[in-house]
């Protein structure tokens, strides 16, 4: 049985790797976390007629020295998976800046194919390419594509198949980059001393070492026990600069005679859209529009309202549930029946809340998020919000965990791993726990408060203010400083629908697999708790505190529920509203308190795991204080000044 050949796709972010991945694999790609990481990797199979090889899509990299946890995974894959072919995708109009990675990959010894993508955009900018000439100069096959339109894909598939079939013994000669002699000497010294095998060539490893790559250093120490060169060599020259400039120069040389430019820049609609989304003044209204239509209309009104109404109200309420309840009646064991069909039973908690309430809301959120990602809008968001995030010791790069937090706080805490310093990770996790409402909760609260837009505004504004205050205080109190902001801003592109849906469904499946079992356990605990009267006990203890913020004692069980399941809390609130136990003012205060209140148990469990017990408890305490002080102050304000009726007039 022949071992399946492996092809690994690499390249910078936003060059179209995923689209190419989708085009060269058949439809059954698996998106999963690379073992031991939270980084998503796609694995797929090419169709049989083209060779039936395995394809891996990797997180974007700028060079073989990783800058983030995600880039490290790409490096890991390259070193450990022994690819039979590496396909590097570059953006045609930026090819000069992307060739240095090509050189690094060639130096490392990987069999390589270069894909020059987005030729259409380059054409609009006035570029013309002579790809066969480029291939000849580089010594590797070069394929030109417009991945979104599918142009050049058939050719690419043929090229890949040919390369895989010729095997490693080709007499094709790679372009060999000449470094300054001083550099070449240092490299040689190291290469001669290296004895082990590393998944990349010794020359490449030596170059990484000279640039101070700590991973390379560690690897060599492990395999060779440390080499004596370090002190003399590393101190003397500015290797990173020399190496980078040598590669840049080589890139320019190679492109001479293979790329022609007749400077033409059209003031197209696309260009205008690109500018508006980043504009210091127009960018923010645009953001507001995106949030309004994306979060409020799509996730809130459509997801939490329409879809849940249909699936929960109609499908489950009128068909599935009555059927299930009836069939459960035949079960001879009353305790089992109780476990299944009672209010805290499995049918209600897991099936109904899991499938009818959570699933539609979370799915619409993930769709929205994937759209933000694939269109290239997220970096613009990061750019616009950088100054705001700096106020709490973070920077624009934290935007991703925060937006994810609007979908699922647990996932957001995991995503916060990608932030660079421990300090940033803690602040992000804290703020997520304090005030970022997850989509289940967000959807329900928006649906509830939508009748009074004034109340919704008040809730939103109070939440934002408290998050900002908590962030600022934490920033002042914690030692250390924030790291710098840097981000490449890609052009806005219309996302490939197939890739979008693939990514979204992978995330939904991940969510269902990871979170639902937790809910199952929680349901069991709550069922046990309600049986032995634990919940009424805690409620009576919490009563005096709840009265302080002007809420009725019936809110106590709602808060407790809210800890276990955010959406239960919101639903409990809804019930109270229906039964007339809450005035409008109380509703706003309660919504605020609930949103600020402790993170749901799943999120808390992950926080403990990620940050450790001490920090986890610290988070809990801060969150608790913020929740009650916020609610207290809001209650006071509402009683003293009749803000609601003023806003109600809006």
């Amino acid at each position, binding site marked *: 049985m022949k071992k399946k050949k492996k092809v690994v796709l690499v390249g910078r972010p936003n060059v179209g790797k995923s689209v190419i991945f989708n085009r060269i694999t058949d439809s059954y790609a698996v998106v999963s976390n690379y073992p031991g990481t939270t980084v998503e990797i796609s694995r797929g199979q090419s169709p049989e007629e083209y060779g039936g090889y395995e394809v891996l899509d990797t997180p974007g990299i700028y060079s073989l020295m990783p800058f983030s946890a995600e880039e490290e995974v790409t490096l890991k894959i390259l070193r450990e998976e022994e690819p039979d072919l590496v396909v590097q995708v570059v953006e045609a109009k930026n090819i000069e800046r992307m060739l240095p990675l090509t050189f690094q990959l060639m130096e490392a010894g990987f069999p390589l194919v270069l894909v020059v993508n987005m030729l259409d955009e380059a054409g609009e900018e006035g570029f013309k390419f002579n790809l066969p000439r480029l291939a000849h100069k580089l010594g590797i096959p070069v394929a030109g594509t417009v991945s979104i339109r599918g142009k050049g894909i058939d050719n690419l598939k043929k090229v890949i198949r040919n390369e895989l079939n010729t095997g490693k013994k080709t007499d094709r000669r790679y372009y060999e980059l000449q470094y300054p002699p001083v550099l070449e000497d240092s490299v040689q010294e190291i290469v001669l001393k290296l004895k082990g095998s590393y998944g990349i060539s010794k020359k490449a490893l030596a170059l990484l070492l000279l640039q101070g790559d700590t991973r390379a250093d560690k690897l060599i120490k492990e395999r060779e026990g440390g080499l004596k060169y370090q002190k003399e060599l590393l101190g003397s020259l500015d290797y990173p600069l020399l190496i980078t400039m040598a590669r840049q120069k080589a890139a320019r040389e190679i492109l001479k005679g293979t790329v022609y430019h007749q400077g033409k820049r059209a003031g197209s609609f696309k260009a205008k859209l690109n500018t508006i989304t980043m504009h210091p003044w127009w960018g923010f209204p645009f953001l507001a529009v995106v949030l309004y239509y994306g979060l409020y209309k799509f996730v809130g009104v459509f997801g939490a309202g329409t879809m849940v109404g249909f699936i929960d109200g109609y499908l489950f309420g009128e068909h599935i549930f009555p059927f299930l309840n009836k069939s459960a009646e035949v079960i001879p064991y009353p305790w089992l029946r109780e476990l299944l069909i009672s209010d805290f039973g499995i049918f209600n908690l897991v099936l109904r809340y899991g499938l009818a309430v959570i699933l539609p809301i979370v799915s619409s959120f993930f769709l929205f998020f994937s759209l933000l990602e694939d269109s290239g809008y997220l*970096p613009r968001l990061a*750019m*616009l919000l950088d100054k705001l995030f700096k106020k709490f010791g973070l920077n624009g790069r934290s935007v991703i965990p925060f937006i994810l937090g609007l979908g699922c706080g647990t996932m957001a805490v995991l995503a916060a791993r990608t932030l660079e310093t421990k300090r940033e990770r803690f602040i992000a996790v804290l703020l997520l726990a304090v005030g970022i409402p997850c989509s289940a909760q967000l959807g329900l609260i928006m649906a509830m408060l939508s009748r009074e837009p004034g109340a919704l505004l008040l809730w939103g504004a109070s939440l934002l203010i408290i998050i900002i205050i908590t962030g600022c205080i934490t920033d002042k109190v914690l030692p250390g400083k924030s790291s*710098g902001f*840097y*981000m490449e*801003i890609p052009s806005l592109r219309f996302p490939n629908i197939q890739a979008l849906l693939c990514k979204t469904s992978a995330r939904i499946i991940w969510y269902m697999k990871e979170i639902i079992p937790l809910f199952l356990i929680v349901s069991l605990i709550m069922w046990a708790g309600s049986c032995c009267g634990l919940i009424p006990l805690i409620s009576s203890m919490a009563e005096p505190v709840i009265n302080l913020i002007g809420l009725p004692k019936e809110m106590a069980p709602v808060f407790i529920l809210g800890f276990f399941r955010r959406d239960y809390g919101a639903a409990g609130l809804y019930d109270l509203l229906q039964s007339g136990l809450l005035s409008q003012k109380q509703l706003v205060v309660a919504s605020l308190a609930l949103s600020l209140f402790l993170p749901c148990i799943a999120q808390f469990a992950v926080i403990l795991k990620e940050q450790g017990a001490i920090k986890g408890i610290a988070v809990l305490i801060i969150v608790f204080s913020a929740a009650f002080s916020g609610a207290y102050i809001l209650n006071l304000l509402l009683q003293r000044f009749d803000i609601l009726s003023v806003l109600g007039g809006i």
Partner: protein
Amino acid sequence: MPFSKNKARLNTLKKGKKARIIEVGGDRKKRRRLLALGFVPGESVTMEQKFPVLLVRIGYSYIAIDEDTGKNILVSP
């Protein structure tokens, strides 16, 4: 296109102006990142926007960096 011999920090470059990178400073990690992003001595950059962050164009890429990071890059306008 001739550039003057003066040195200035990137964050002081006015909007719409072009300059050539002379030196990339900062600690090792920051520097490597900037180099990899395309801030290489000899390359010319254009300041596209200054608020809320510095947005520069290098070739056909747009890179956003904050003021502090911009201070570390020396250019000749």
